[in-house]
């Protein structure tokens, strides 16, 4: 336990020193701000159309934004987590996996009284702690920008929803951190370590949704998932196979439920939680299969 904590601390310290990790943090916060800016711009447009209409009609009509959920302005953050967040987790995971091998520290660490599993668990917790820092910063940025846009701070319920959303994002990103770590600790070549997890990321984010869990090709870029067409037998079969592991779709749907977005088809979320936690648990299980021999594999440039 102590040894695991030592590894976690070390990972966080190293991430803060690493230019790439810090750059990705900045990019992610930038995207969160962009999400808020886009939200603000559409809010602004609709509001001016509304005010124009009120003027022309010469009488009061209900404000369309009065009924809109407060978190609607940050919905694009959902898609940034699926795209940039997952990439960030993969990259930080790969770096954490490769670093000790490149600097020759792996043998040193393994000659200390620490088990291979404690080491792997420490690495993962360290990467996920860094992702926690990123998400917490994004949470703060989102909260502040909603305040700025709607000119009033989020209430307790909406703040809670935002916190739950980012907590969900943390669980959603965990398998990507694990993939990065596994690739980083096992890959024979440093230059190709990113390849395998990136291919899986592309498959989960873009290919699987098209094969039957999302209705149309553009759905994957939409923060709000649309239900799959279930009339076609091809889609039916694929849906049954891929739906449970289509974590990006589950994450998007569950986020819509949390943010109480108006256009989601169903508010059932148990399946989403099951899928996200099972995939996360499975990936942790795979990581804990790491052996001393696999960690000591030589690394080439």
């Amino acid at each position, binding site marked *: 336990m*102590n040894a695991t904590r030592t590894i976690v601390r070390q990972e966080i310290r*190293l991430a803060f020193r690493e230019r790439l990790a810090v750059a990705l943090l900045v990019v992610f916060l930038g995207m969160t701000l962009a999400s808020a800016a886009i939200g603000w711009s559409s809010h602004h447009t609709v509001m001016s159309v509304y005010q124009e209409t009120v003027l022309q009609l010469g009488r009061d009509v209900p404000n369309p934004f009065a009924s809109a959920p407060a978190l609607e302005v940050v919905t694009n953050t959902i898609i940034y987590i699926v795209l940039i967040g997952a990439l960030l987790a993969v990259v930080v995971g790969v770096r954490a996996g490769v670093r000790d091998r490149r600097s020759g520290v792996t*043998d040193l660490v393994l000659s200390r009284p620490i088990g291979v599993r404690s080491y792997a668990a420490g690495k993962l917790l360290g990467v996920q702690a860094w992702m926690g820092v990123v998400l917490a910063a994004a949470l703060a940025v989102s909260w502040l920008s909603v305040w700025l846009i709607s000119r009033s701070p989020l209430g307790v319920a909406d703040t809670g929803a935002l916190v739950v959303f980012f907590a969900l994002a943390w669980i959603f990103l965990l398998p990507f951190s694990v993939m990065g770590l596994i690739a980083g600790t096992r890959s024979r070549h440093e230059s190709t370590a990113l390849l395998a997890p990136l291919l899986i990321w592309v498959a989960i984010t873009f290919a699987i949704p098209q094969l039957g869990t999302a209705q149309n090709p553009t759905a994957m870029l939409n923060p709000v998932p649309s239900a799959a067409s279930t009339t076609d037998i091809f889609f039916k079969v694929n849906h049954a196979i891929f739906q449970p592991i289509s974590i990006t779709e589950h994450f998007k749907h569950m986020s819509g439920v949390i943010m109480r977005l108006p256009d989601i088809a169903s508010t059932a979320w148990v399946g989403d939680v099951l899928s996200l936690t099972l995939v996360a648990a499975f990936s942790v299980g795979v990581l804990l299969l790491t052996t001393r021999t696999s960690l000591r594999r030589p690394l080439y440039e």
Partner: protein
Amino acid sequence: MRAAIRTNGLTKRYNGKAGEPALADLSLEVPEGEVFGLLGHNGAGKTTTVSILTTLLDPTAGSAEVQGADVGKSSAKVRRSIGYLPENVEFYDSLSLEENLVFFARLSGLSRPRERIREVLSFLDFEGHEKERLSTFSKGMRQRVGIAQAILHKPSVLFLDEPTSGLDPAGVKLLRDIIVRLNSELGMTIFMNTHLLAEVTKTCTSIGVLRAGRLIYHDSLERTLRSFPAQDSLEEIYLHIEASGA
């Protein structure tokens, strides 16, 4: 005298490698308090031997003990009693000397690392660099970092894999003096892989020679120098042993 290291028929065959094993039937005893130098050409099996003794690698056959603990069955106990400096280790470049050492001290179970780090750095005459990042360190300084991390937890046996390779003459001398003092002042048993025979003459109390995975020679340095009167340096003795299989 008690054996610090004892191996019995130790054999290692790497997966998928046909032919002769990397290490074949090594039976060796290194008593406590020795500075043992393991010599051998490139690929002779020196690093393989040290990897098994430091619990990093499982032998294919045979057994090994360090301070009476089996490297396989009681690996945790072995790890607590050893210090290790692998070949070509670079540590964490983006961290300072102190941050690096704190990490290894904590990994070795020290709860108050800073005090001990000061002590070790003063023993190594290496004070004043605590806050500097390792990226600014020379090879010689890095090797001293390597020694520092290896002795933080006061191990009784120290494994050094080619500690002086790549150092300039001044660095070599500095490291040699440190090794001698670790042995004489702190009483550590030292197991060292090396190519540099001049160093061996000045530091080791006994030597072994590996050739293609087999131990072909093992004796005290003193007796070795006496039994080969025709050769006038350890280098010549080594080459003679290596060639003839003594």
